[in-house]
């Protein structure tokens, strides 16, 4: 919340999609920072960067359906001293423009902000070509790049503002919109790289990101009622750099961790968390939940989440499963708990 001054209220956040909030915040930032420029590839309306384009037409460029060129041009604009916000669907930002993002923007460590919309399976019926279930895995491997997956529209606002404090590339992955609100207000201390505890707990930790955060919170409440389980829920909005401290603390406090993401189980949040656990050498029951390593089904977003067991029912099922999972305690177990 570095750049202050909201122009909408929580009531609006219920009606506005993540994309619309992004559009509004970008307009707001555009007033403050004359160096911000907006780039689109024939998706000005779909990604809502068009709102910025209407307000600042001379600072807005549409390249037609040419994502590779758009990312390369973005690098050039950043080198010229401007701050490009580059928007397209997550599938095209991470895959079509992949090398242009990696080599032109990340390798040269340029101050470009990528707003990747329609992340995960949020574009449901459009089908697999329009699902981005590999993007986090791909862009997480780009050095210099910060990767953020906001949980709702309010967090999107926070992330878009906060990325202005970073003098380097940032990838913000949002949904198609229609994702329900998780936060009551935007004042919960959003900080890049710091997980947010959404629900306290001591028996098991659920680490979620993006659209799965709301489901994790709902599941934690149900599990408390029905199973008398104390479920800690962490919103890991920053996938890179990952909040190692929060993960280690979860290992030591709860010794059971399950991750949830709208992404292939390979290479995304789950893998990032697993790396930290493995390197810690501490014993921990662990389970990654996400899209299995196969191409996604066609369907409404909520049904696809359900099918892949990353909705509320899925979180409940997986948490119950991990409570019965055996694992070996490490030597200094007693010292730490």
């Amino acid at each position, binding site marked *: 919340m570095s750049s202050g001054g909201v122009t909408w209220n929580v009531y609006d956040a219920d009606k506005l999609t993540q994309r619309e909030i992004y559009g509004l915040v970008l307009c707001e930032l555009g007033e403050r920072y004359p160096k911000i420029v907006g780039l689109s590839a*024939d998706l000005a309306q779909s990604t809502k960067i068009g709102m910025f384009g209407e307000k600042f037409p001379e600072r807005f460029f549409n390249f037609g*359906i040419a994502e590779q060129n758009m990312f390369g041009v973005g690098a050039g604009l950043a080198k010229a001293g401007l701050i490009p916000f580059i928007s397209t669907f997550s599938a095209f930002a991470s895959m079509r423009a992949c090398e242009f993002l990696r080599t032109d923007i990340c390798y040269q460590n340029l101050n470009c902000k990528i707003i990747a919309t329609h992340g995960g399976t949020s574009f*449901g*019926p*459009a089908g697999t070509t329009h699902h981005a279930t590999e993007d986090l895995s791909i862009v997480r491997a780009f050095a210099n790049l910060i990767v953020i997956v906001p949980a709702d529209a309010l967090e999107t606002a926070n992330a878009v503002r906060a990325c202005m404090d970073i003098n380097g590339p940032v990838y913000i992955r949002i949904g198609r919109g229609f994702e329900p609100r998780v936060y009551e207000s935007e004042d919960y201390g959003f900080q890049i790289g710091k997980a947010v505890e959404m629900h306290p707990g001591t028996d098991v930790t659920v680490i979620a990101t993006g659209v799965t955060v709301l489901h994790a919170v709902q599941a934690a409440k149900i599990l408390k009622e029905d199973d008398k389980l104390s479920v800690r829920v962490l919103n890991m909005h920053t996938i890179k750099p990952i909040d190692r401290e929060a993960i280690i603390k979860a290992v030591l406090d709860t010794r059971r961790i399950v991750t949830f993401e709208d992404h292939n189980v390979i290479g995304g949040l789950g893998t990032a968390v697993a790396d930290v656990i493995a390197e810690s050498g501490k014993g921990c029951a662990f389970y990654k939940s996400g899209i299995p390593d196969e191409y996604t089904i*066609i*369907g*409404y977003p909520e049904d696809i989440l359900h099918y892949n067991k990353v909705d509320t029912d899925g979180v409940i099922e997986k948490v119950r499963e991990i409570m019965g999972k055996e694992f070996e305690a490490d030597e200094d177990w007693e010292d730490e708990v």
Partner: protein
Amino acid sequence: MAITDQEIAELKQLARKVREDIIDVTGWSGGTHIGGSLSMVEIVTSLYWKYLRIQPHNPHWEDRDRFVLSKGHGGVGHAVVLALKGYFPPEQLRDFNKSGSAFGMHLDCNKVPGVDCSTGSMGHGLPMAVGLSLGARLLKKEWRTYCVMGDGECDEGSIWEAAMSAAHYKLDNLLGFVDRNGLMIDGPTEKVMALEPFVDKWTAFGWKALPIDGHDFRQLAQAIDFALEHKGQPVVVIAKTVKGKGVEFMENKAAWHYGGLNAELVEKAKRGLGDAS
């Protein structure tokens, strides 16, 4: 294969039926890329009912002509044609867009019989079509490859990389179509990212470019007949069309790139179809 008046009359009837089905599926599925599906109706109808050598009961027939919808968002327009040709029962289209269905907005070749290539991300179809054409030549196969592109899609560099390679390898077994409806999502192509002089661009890339009226079956047949005889170079038909063609309230409106229709609009859309094409 000169076209007769009788054939033209029949193709017009079929085109009308294709449009009706596109409207129906759009109605019950919640939304489709209807504008660009309606603009390509005469192109696909000509191909599927006059030119393509295919066996709908045997979709994997080795010697079939290949059809690649490079503008994959025209999936609904392709799916209704495949159903009418008998690749699968038309009732299956009731599931379009539904959870667990074989039919999403962009067709999956591993789920929908008759689809040769999965497309949907712009600028992938023509490269695959070039591969199919090169492969046919290497294998001494008679089959031809037909590829339909969007005009906005031609912003993608990969289209021009493929165009260059098709000309380089003198792929005269490849026939391209550009559905030149003049609109993309954010507005007119010439405003968003100018393509003109478009015919000159294809010519400069080594193709024989044929600008025609893409809703006129006679002109389409003449162009395709020309291409079938043309040697030593790929041919592209620059088919001038109207986005939303046949539905008055959609014609030439970028907003109808994608949309849904309630029962009332379905009726209204169909009522106006009488004088289409």
